[in-house]
């Protein structure tokens, strides 16, 4: 599983990287699955009914890191329900640029048993 963290924007803006760039290249090279994963409070991943400061209190990097770890440990893909595609059973590589770059560095440091590569 190669997961592109979409960082501080809607995941829609990163979908192009399923067609080209490292996410595409790695998925093809590993016969793997490429995923664009949205960050909480961006795109349609809004956990609260509005964006008041009080409701933004769940927008922290460590909460978002925990989201992505939870995804890796629990995801079931439609049509692939017979396969265990969760970590650590399946190898996970996570990738990102700028804020998402820092984010994946933190993921690797804080959740090394989940994002252990291949």
């Amino acid at each position, binding site marked *: 599983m190669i997961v592109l963290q979409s960082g501080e924007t809607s995941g829609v803006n990163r979908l192009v990287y399923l067609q080209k760039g490292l996410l595409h290249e790695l998925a093809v090279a590993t016969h793997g699955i490429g995923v664009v994963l949205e960050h909480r409070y961006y795109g349609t991943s809004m956990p609260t009914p509005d*964006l008041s*400061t009080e409701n933004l209190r769940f*927008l922290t990097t460590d909460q978002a890191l925990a989201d992505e770890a939870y995804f890796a440990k629990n995801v079931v893909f439609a049509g692939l329900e017979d396969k265990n595609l969760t970590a650590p059973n399946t190898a996970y590589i996570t990738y*990102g640029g700028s*804020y*998402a770059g*820092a*984010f994946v560095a933190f993921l690797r440091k*804080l959740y090394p048993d989940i994002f252990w590569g291949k």
Partner: protein
Amino acid sequence: MIGAISSSGVVEAIWDYWNYYEPIRVYGKPTCISNTQKITNMMDNILIGINDTATTAELKGAFGLPNVTYDDDFAVVVAYGIMGWQGKNWDPEVNDPSLDLYCGNITANKIIYPDTKSLTPTVQHLLKKGGYESEVDALTTPMLNWIGWLAQYAVDGCKGTQDSCFSTHNATYYAQDDISQDWRSWPYQVSCFDLHWQDLSKSNIVLHPMGFPSNRFRRPKGPTSLDLPHQHPRIQLHNLQSRLQHQHASRRRRHQQIRRIWHLLPAPSNRRRRARSLASSLSPCLAFRQYCYE
């Protein structure tokens, strides 16, 4: 094998990060960079040094921005070209060409935009007032082309008042918080967690590439990350890794690991306290900093 690929990962928070522009200064096309430096310095000499209403108005008017009220908003707009560096990409479909277009414009040896010719006396007057009398001949055409390029890149496209297009001081706007205000998430993160601020120099106006500028930073009292020996982010992470090597993978330990990573950076809670004392000079961020959830 790799578990994570960190591409331009911003793992280090740095106070007073004027160095952001250093790679641009060192590796950008030399004439573009030197023209940018000199004309920017002229602007700083006028806005900060001379700092009188008439000259400031003359400068803003020359750039077609007479109705941008605040100097920091004006500074962000005129810096649009050089800030295009970060948008460069080898893939033409993704590449932002604005830096190359800006540089091409301000290094051309003739006036590109005929409408700007009439600004020649004003531009030369500003160059002299801003301390560049000895280089007026060399800098007039670059400055006129900067003005002309900016007009078609940003200024002419503004419908409505110039403050409505370019200002970041509208507290009423920033107070909106219904679910459609999806711009809020990132400023919340960068304001409350001290990421992504760059400034042009320690004494100059602070800019932010996303267009949320602040007034001049005053360096806080006491040690800051600038006082620590600079370490390459990869080295910092490696040191962290060896420190964490013997940790158990329990949830309690994991929380400790999170705290340790944040201690590579100035501690967020301390930064927020220091930052509050500067909040009065961080006008667009004011809406967020004073409400950062504790």
